[in-house]
């Protein structure tokens, strides 16, 4: 019975069906299934399945995003029960994400957030047009492992350097890695500003983040 339910959970992720995923998560709580089992034996199996289908070219980005969104809904539905039991999902790391001040370009950064959270990171997405200090303060407050900062304009990209410098000024640079992204960003820029990594797309960003947290 529980086995069947786990299978259905995995399938809801594969189908990218957030409604079904949420319903199954609620049922799991009602039936007294350990939320961690629901995640690890149910939903995560679906995430992995979509991931491997993607890797061999059978699935495409929209399917990954849908699966990621369904996963997010499932986990947040299970969260109150995890808190009640005093357990928590082990995460790969905490990432604070934002598009930098002066820049309102949203989509790449949001996509990276979805991919990271589907991969098992705890993601705090602060949105767009975010001042450097707000970003850095949030990272300190949540004890983040990584700051991810996006910029689409060459004129706002310069503020990615400010993030690195602010972390240095606050003595946090050794604790928090910096990932940068956006169309004008290049590997040379990453080196120049002393950031830790970048990727041209959201899939690559997951690999970079995993490497940065040593996973």
């Amino acid at each position: 019975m529980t086995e069947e339910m786990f299978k259905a959970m995995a399938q809801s992720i594969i189908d990218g069906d957030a409604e079904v995923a949420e319903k199954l998560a609620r049922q799991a709580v009602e039936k007294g299934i350990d939320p961690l089992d629901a995640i690890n034996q149910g939903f995560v199996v679906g995430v992995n399945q979509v991931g491997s289908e993607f890797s061999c070219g059978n699935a495409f980005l929209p399917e990954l995003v849908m699966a990621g969104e369904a996963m997010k809904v499932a986990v947040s539905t299970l969260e109150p029960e995890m808190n009640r039991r005093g357990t928590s999902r082990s995460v790969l790391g905490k990432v604070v994400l934002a598009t930098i001040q002066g820049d309102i370009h949203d989509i790449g950064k949001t996509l990276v957030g979805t991919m990271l959270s589907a991969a098992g990171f705890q993601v705090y997405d602060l949105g767009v047009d975010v001042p450097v200090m707000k970003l850095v303060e949030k990272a300190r407050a949540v004890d983040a492992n990584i700051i991810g900062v996006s910029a689409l304009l060459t004129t706002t990209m310069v503020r990615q350097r400010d993030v690195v410098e602010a972390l240095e000024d606050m003595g946090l640079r050794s604790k928090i890695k910096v990932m940068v992204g956006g169309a004008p960003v290049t590997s040379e820029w990453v080196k120049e500003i002393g950031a830790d990594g970048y990727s041209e797309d959201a899939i690559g960003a997951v690999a970079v983040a995993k490497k940065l947290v040593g996973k």
Partner: protein
Amino acid sequence: MGRPIKSITNPKLSLNILTPEEVQRIHTATLDVIENVGVRFPSQKVLDIWEAHGAKVDRETFIVKAPGALIEKALKSAPPADALAARDPAQDLMMDGNHVFLGTDGCGVEVIDIYSGARRRSRLQDVGEIARVADYLEEVAFHWVAVSAQDRPPQTRGLHEVKAIWDNSTKHVQTESIYSEKEARAAVEMAAIIVGGREALRKRPVLSMMQCTAPPLGHDGGSLEAALVGAEAGIPVGFMTMASCLTTGPATMAGTLVVGNAEVIAGTALIQLAYPGAPVFYAAAQTASDLRTGSYTGGGPEDYLFGAATNVLSDFYDIPLSMGSFATGAKEPNWQAGVDNSLSTFMSCIVMSDMLLGVGFLHGSRIWSYAQMLMDCEIYNIVNKTLQGIPIDDETLALDVIRAVGPGGNFLKQKHTIRHMRDVFLPQFMDRRPYNEWQEKGDGPSDWALAKARQILETHQPEVLGSGLSAELQHIIETAEKEPVD
């Protein structure tokens, strides 16, 4: 005297990509979106304008919902097509629907160095050097700011860039890299100095301004305010959508056309509401995002179809079009670059897009390559020749000469042949040599293109601004630089 400009005009070929009924459906759907979903205009100043004209405005979300009738009425005040002026009046560009003019692409961040071949970050010197080569090339009719002057401060970078172009070329400049009201004011002031005042600038806009939208269904606040400054000064202003299938637009091309069209015509309507009769143009560089990465592709059949469809839309609104073609995603000048840039350019040209962007880039408009620039010009020439079609008349049917040569002869010695041989296209950068020559020399088209670019850069003397004017422009930039950053 500036160099002549090669436009595409009087094409014999044509293409029907959308029927009038289909265009009407796209327009109706677009108005539905603007009225019921709304478009984001994140500037209080802009919201004031919308509100004053009766649009529904949400001050928190910045979303404007404007009735279709308001949009249609506003668009009607857009003036009939005019010319883009150049410092040299012989290089003015007629926006009459019967010319395609080619520009450079813009906003690149890296350059393949013309001598070392190394890829490096772009700087101000590159902007000027690219402009000088473009000034020489007959195919290139106007400039975008090809690469970003990353060695200049962000708040005045766009000013350094337009000055570098004016210092090196007499051709029209369309800036796509001015994102704030303050910078726009300074740019307008610079343009006015060049032509002899603000009134002269209205008559001879040597500068036009292109602003990117923020798809889906949004604009950038600074860009909007900069555009209003341009419109107030009477220089042509356009909004470019890059809404792309799958990510910033629906997966379907028709849906993505609607999203992009909503952004562009809502922005254009705003300009007309604020400054009725201000010259405007439509701009687009739509494509499909990559299925695997979601990234900008700069190529593929969707790109080519958007290239042709957009001019039908801009014609429907009776405003000129600045259309993104070329812009291959290829990493070096290669097979992919040839396919992408040829087909996208053919499709944009056969429908007579007024302005075409642009030559010179690799990796989705990020890396400038002089070799690609020259080869893109060749693509443009091939497309130009193809669009002339096959003229049929007594002279071209050549019956007399066919009679004279008869079966088994050859046509090489005929006067008719001498008369018409120069009609035959002669490529600069295609390898038609014997196989052994290729084998011995081991070089190829991109080597020849690069060599030609070097030669132009080293020898071409553009008509420079003159030290007085140049110093005045520099002074404006320095004044702007001293102002506090917002």
